[in-house]
């Protein structure tokens, strides 16, 4: 390499423009507010990274910051939106670097605007969206055409009630059945552990005096909860969310809710504080108490999530009353697929608790033959029955 060609390069390698650093710090804070990890370490990396690229190349600048600040696919739209807002060229309509507020249009595409709203936990109406007038489709049939984008108010449940239910659920014997892993641990029986046996043999001049053994370690199975929060399930939604939060704290739980569409709430439930967890769920899930399309929701789960969350012999629990406005044939097809990738498929139906109930709804009739277990879920007692079932799960029941 010739020295003259390297010289301008190494000059660029120092700290970027002086006034860029505080701007970068502000950008990191913006990302942090939107839920991305943007601590000092990342900021340092970003500063260093910018020393290696040509800042005039807008795309490279964006790519470099993305490589540093993003670490999962879901965060990419948020990052792009934040980048657009923060580093936008001066525009009379939008002041760059200001968090979106009321009455200010943003230089964003509708998808990015949506990602941004979700990331900041803002209400959609808090953003002025000139690009997207059809976000609330006109209500025509009264049913799902209007995807009721209303926020369900969790605050209705009193604090005392919440605490009571939570305490009951936390005391419940939640122990999910175990499965063998491929990791081995020392044991009296099982396969011969050559490593330990040989190590001891060396002490006795190569004579194999003792054979040590090991066998597979066991682990609890992951749980996947898919909850119906549509209108007909309204009375149970709150209880179910508290239930999900209670088990999520102790078990390897993946949680999803659906009415017209499927939303993953696993991360939201990880918050230690129940009220805050429920609050973020209600902010993120926009179709609480909307209509139900179970088949579509399960299909969505099969395509987008099954491969990611159904490894390691997971137990899948669907909670729904089976009031489905979708196509029963679709529900059947999707359940067949789901059953094949799950270790066990359990359907909880709150209506099963009421007297004289028979699973005659179209959805339930379609689903029943495909589930391993069909249980009630209308009160804490019923959920404890579920707990006992989970603890005793071993192999699949014959179907």
């Amino acid at each position: 390499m010739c020295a003259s060609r390297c010289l301008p390069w190494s000059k660029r390698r120092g700290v970027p423009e002086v006034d860029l650093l505080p701007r970068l710090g502000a950008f990191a804070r913006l990302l942090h507010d939107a839920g991305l990890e943007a601590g000092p370490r990342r900021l340092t990396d970003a500063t260093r990274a910018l020393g290696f690229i040509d800042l005039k190349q807008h795309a490279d600048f964006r790519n470099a910051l993305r490589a540093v600040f993003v670490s999962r696919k879901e965060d990419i739209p948020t990052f792009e939106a934040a980048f657009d807002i923060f580093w936008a060229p001066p525009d009379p309509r939008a002041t760059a670097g200001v968090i979106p507020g009321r009455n200010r249009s943003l230089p964003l595409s509708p998808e990015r605007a949506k990602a941004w709203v979700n990331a900041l936990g803002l209400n959609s109406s808090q953003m002025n969206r000139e690009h997207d007038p059809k976000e609330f489709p006109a209500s025509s049939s009264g049913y799902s055409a209007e995807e009721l984008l209303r926020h369900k108010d969790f605050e209705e449940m009193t604090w005392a009630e919440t605490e009571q239910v939570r305490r009951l659920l936390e005391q419940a014997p939640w122990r999910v059945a175990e499965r063998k892993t491929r990791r081995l641990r020392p044991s009296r029986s099982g396969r011969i552990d050559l490593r330990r046996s040989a190590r001891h043999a060396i002490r006795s001049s190569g004579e194999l005096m003792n054979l040590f053994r090991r066998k597979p370690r066991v682990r609890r199975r992951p749980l996947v909860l898919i909850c119906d929060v549509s209108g007909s399930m309204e009375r149970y939604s709150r209880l179910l969310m508290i239930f999900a939060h209670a088990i999520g704290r102790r078990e390897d739980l993946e949680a999803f809710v659906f009415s017209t569409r499927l939303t993953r709430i696993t991360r939201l439930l990880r918050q230690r504080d129940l009220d805050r967890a429920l609050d973020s769920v209600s902010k993120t899930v926009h179709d609480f108490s909307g209509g139900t399309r179970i088949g579509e929701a399960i299909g969505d789960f099969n395509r987008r999530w099954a491969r990611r969350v159904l490894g390691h012999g997971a137990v899948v629990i669907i909670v729904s009353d089976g009031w489905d406005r979708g196509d029963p044939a679709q529900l059947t097809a999707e359940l067949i697929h789901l059953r094949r990738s799950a270790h066990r498929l359990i359907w909880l139906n709150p209506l099963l608790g009421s007297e004289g109930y028979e699973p005659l709804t179209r959805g339930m009739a379609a689903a029943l033959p495909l589930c391993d277990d069909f249980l009630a879920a209308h009160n804490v007692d019923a959920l404890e029955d579920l707990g006992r079932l989970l603890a005793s799960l071993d192999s699949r029941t014959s179907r």
Partner: protein
Amino acid sequence: MSPVSAPTTIEDVERRLRERRYIGDRALATSIFLALQLKKPLFIEGEAGVGKTEAAKVMADVLGARLIRLQCYEGIDLAHAVYEWNYPRQLLHIRLMGEGQDRRVAEREIFSSEFLLRRPLLDAIDNDDATPPVLLIDEIDRSDEEFEAFLLELLSEFQVSIPEIGTIKARQVPFVVITSNRTREVHDALKRRCLYHWIDYPDLDKEVEIVRARAPEAADGLAREVAALVQGLRGMDLYKVPGVAETLDWARSLAALGATQIDATLVNATMGAALKYQEDLERVREQVPALVEKARRA
């Protein structure tokens, strides 16, 4: 291997990838370039078959470095990833030494590097290569949390402790590429140590370019039609959406059959190259004529 200079600009990375028939985008080239400059691991995620592993392989070639690959799987442990003693040989050796040997001398002898089975991670750390090797930790999402925790430690210290020998520290840090298919979420702590890049499915033009570069046996018209066909499939509601690897397989299969363009019969006969679920095959079969029609117009 003659020493190859490290890339000095993003354009340089782009050009070298292209020379090796890897068609990536500018963002990937930027991530690779920065990972090299900042000496940080590169974490590549994407759906199956978009060329994550291939990127690491090509990188090794670009750098003129040795590729050390660790394929992860459930239950992978230190004995498979770092090192293991060669016990049968040790036992044999100790038997041959016979009685009366000082045990401490004997132990020192059998716990020497001669009896050490070096696995990929130790190999990558304890290297004397002219150019630092490329360490590919493939499909990390298949391993478990214990192994992830170990990797986290390894990637921050770049050293390995072997009780009988001592600590081995990397004299030169390898270029680490970690890939994941996202079958599960990898812990944030590990990702935080890395630069991140998400590889998406390519658009039509890029995919045609990839087919031409990697499956040159397919005629130009065929390459475009197959790429368009797969693009059409990706828009459908399928359990397993075909990746670029499937596009290449499909193009090669068709070329092997002597096809220079697609038709419904050929597509029906070879669809298995791209679709791996019975339900998906059935769903697509109904629409083959329409898909073919659309692909040929693309």
